[in-house]
C-alpha cells in the first residue's frame, strides 16, 4: 500500500510539474487544477459515499466568499484561507447532519442540496444594498466582491502567490488532497464509508452510525470544495454569486460523471478535459458550448455510465487487486436500491 501510494505520488508530482511545460497557458492550467480539486470533492462523496449532492457549488461558493470576506477583514490572508476552509466544512456538516439524520436519500437529497444552493444564490444576488456588510466587506450582490488581498508566501508577506507560484501551490494542494483521500479510503473510515454505500442497512445492523459517517464524509467533501473555492478566489481575484449557480453545480457533476465517479482520478481527469474543452470552445462561434457539454453528458450516461477512467482502467490493469474497497458507481446504486427495499 505504502509503496503504491509513493508511486502514485511520484507520478502525480511528475505530471503536475511537467504540465506547465506542455501547456503554455499557466493561467488556464491553474484554474483547471482548481476545478480538478472541486471535482475530486464531489467524486469522493458521490463515488465512495454514494451521496449525489446537487449543490457542491454551495461549498465552492462559500469557500470563495469566505476567503474574500475574511481577507478584507483580517490582515493576514492565511487566516482568511483558514476561515474559508472552516466555513464550508461547518456548513456541510450542519447540512449533512440535517440530511442524514433526517434519513433523506436519493432524489430527496438531491432536491434539498439543490434548494439550499438556490437559496444561497438568490440571497447573494440580492445583497447589492449598502446594508449587506460583513465587517468591512460589502457583499455586493450580483456584481460580487472584487479587490480583496490574495495569498502571500507564508514566510514573506510581500510576495504574492500569482502565476507560476499560484499554480504550483494549487497543484500541491490537489496532489495532497488526492493522496489524503486515497489514504482515507484505505483506512477503516473509508472502508466503512464504502460499506455504507454498498449496503446502508447492513452497516447499520452491524453497529455503525451511518448518519455520523455520512455526515463526516459530506463535511470532508464540503471542506475540499471550499478549499477549491478559496483557490478560485485567489485565481480570479473576484467572487460573484455565479459561483453558487445551478450551472456551476451542473458542471461539477458533469466533470465527475464523464471522468468516472468510481475512482479518485476520474473526476480530476473529467475536470481537466472538460474545463479545457470549454476554454477552447470559447475561441470559436460555430457550435454553442452548452450544446456540446450537454450532449457529452447524455452520451456518457447512455454509453459510458461508469465514466472514462473506470472504463479505461481494465485495459491498463489486467486484474484488479482483489481486496480493494473500490467499486463502481453503477453497481453501488443498484445495491442502494436493494437496501431501500429491504428496509
Amino acid at each position: 500500500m505504502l509503496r503504491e501510494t509513493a508511486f502514485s505520488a511520484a507520478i502525480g508530482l511528475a505530471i503536475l510539474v511537467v504540465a506547465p511545460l506542455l501547456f503554455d497557458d499557466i493561467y488556464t492550467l491553474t484554474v483547471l487544477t482548481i476545478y480538478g480539486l472541486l471535482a475530486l470533492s464531489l467524486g469522493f462523496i458521490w463515488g465512495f459515499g454514494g451521496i449525489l449532492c446537487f449543490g457542491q457549488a454551495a461549498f465552492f461558493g462559500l469557500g470563495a466568499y469566505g476567503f474574500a470576506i475574511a481577507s478584507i477583514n483580517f490582515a493576514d490572508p492565511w487566516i482568511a484561507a483558514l476561515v474559508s476552509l472552516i466555513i464550508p466544512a461547518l456548513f456541510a456538516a450542519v447540512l449533512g447532519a440535517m440530511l442524514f439524520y433526517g434519513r433523506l436519500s436519493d432524489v430527496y437529497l438531491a432536491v434539498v442540496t439543490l434548494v439550499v444552493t438556490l437559496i444561497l444564490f438568490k440571497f447573494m444576488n440580492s445583497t447589492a444594498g449598502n446594508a449587506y456588510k460583513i465587517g468591512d466587506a460589502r457583499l455586493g450582490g450580483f456584481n460580487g466582491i472584487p479587490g480583496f488581498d490574495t495569498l502571500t508566501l507564508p514566510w514573506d508577506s510581500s510576495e504574492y502567490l500569482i502565476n507560476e507560484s499560484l499554480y504550483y501551490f494549487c497543484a500541491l494542494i490537489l496532489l495532497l488532497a488526492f493522496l489524503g483521500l486515497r489514504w482515507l479510503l484505505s483506512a477503516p473510515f473509508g472502508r466503512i464509508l464504502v460499506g455504507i454505500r454498498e449496503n446502508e442497512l447492513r452497516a447499520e445492523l452491524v453497529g455503525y452510525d451511518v448518519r455520523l459517517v455520512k455526515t463526516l464524509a459530506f463535511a470532508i467533501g464540503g471542506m475540499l470544495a471550499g478549499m477549491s473555492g478559496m483557490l478560485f478566489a485567489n485565481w480570479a481575484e473576484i467572487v460573484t454569486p455565479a459561483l453558487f449557480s445551478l450551472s456551476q453545480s451542473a458542471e461539477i457533476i458533469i466533470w465527475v460523471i464523464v471522468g468516472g465517479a468510481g475512482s479518485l482520478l476520474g473526476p480530476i481527469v473529467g475536470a481537466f478535459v472538460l474545463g479545457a474543452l470549454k476554454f477552447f470552445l470559447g475561441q470559436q462561434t460555430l457550435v454553442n458550448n452548452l450544446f456540446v457539454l450537454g450532449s457529452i453528458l447524455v452520451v456518457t450516461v447512455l454509453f459510458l455510465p461508469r465514466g472514462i477512467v473506470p472504463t479505461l482502467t481494465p485495459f491498463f490493469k489486467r486484474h484488479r487487486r482483489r481486496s480493494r474497497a473500490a467499486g463502481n458507481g453503477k453497481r453501488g446504486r443498484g445495491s442502494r436500491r436493494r437496501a431501500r427495499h429491504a428496509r
Partner: protein
Amino acid sequence: MHADAILETRAVTMRFGGVTALENVDFRLENDELRCLIGPNGAGKSTFFKCLTGLLTPSEGSIYLQGEDCTGIHPHAIARRGVGIKTQVPSVMNTLSAHENIWLSARQAQSSREANRTTAEVLERLDLEDIAYDEVATLAHGKRQLVELGIVMAGRPSLVLLDEPAAGLTGEEVERMVAVIHELNRDAALVIVEHDMHFVRSIAKTVTVFHQGRVLTEAPVDAVMADPAVRDVYLGKRA
C-alpha cells in the same frame, strides 16, 4: 424480580395506519436460550424483528435488552448492545469481498489488528476461505447466506436474530446451518424465524407461535406441533 433476561418485550404493539401488525406481545428470552418463532405469513414475525433491531419503533410497549430499556433507540445502538441479525434476503455489501464484509463487521468494536484475526477465524469456521476475496455478488445464494452469518458472528453478539436461515438452502447446506446455529448458541442467545418445521425440530427446544400479531402460544416444540390450535392456524381453519 428474577434476573434480567437477555431480551424481554412488554406489551409491544405496532400499528401502521389502521392496521395492527403486533398487539401486546410479551416475549422473554433467557441467556443462552435458543427460541424459534413460527407462524403463518403476516403473523407479525418480521415486524417483531424490525422492532427488536430498532428499524421500527413500537407504537406502544417497551423492549429491554439485559434489563435495559432500549425502546426507540437507533439500530446501530442496538447492534452495539450485542444484537446481530441475519435478514431474510441476504443483506450483504454486494461489490465487496466476503473478507471485507466480515472485516467491516468485526472492525466495529475491535481494533484493525483484532478485526483481521476475527475475520480469519470466522472465514475458517464457516469454511469460506477459498472464496474470501471474491465479490459477494458473484457467490451462490447458500454462500451468501453464510457470508451474512459470518458478518453476524464477527460482531460477537450476545443475541442473534435469524430470519429464515434455511430458506433456499440445499440439504447439505441445511445441515451445515444447523451446526453453525448450535455453535453460535454456545456464546449467544438466538431467536430464529423459520417455516420449515423439520428444521425447527432439529434445533429448538421451545417455540413461540405468532398469529395475527399476537403470541398464540409458547411451549416445547413437540407440544406445539401436537397443538390443534397451531395446526388450525397453519391450515387456516380459524382464520
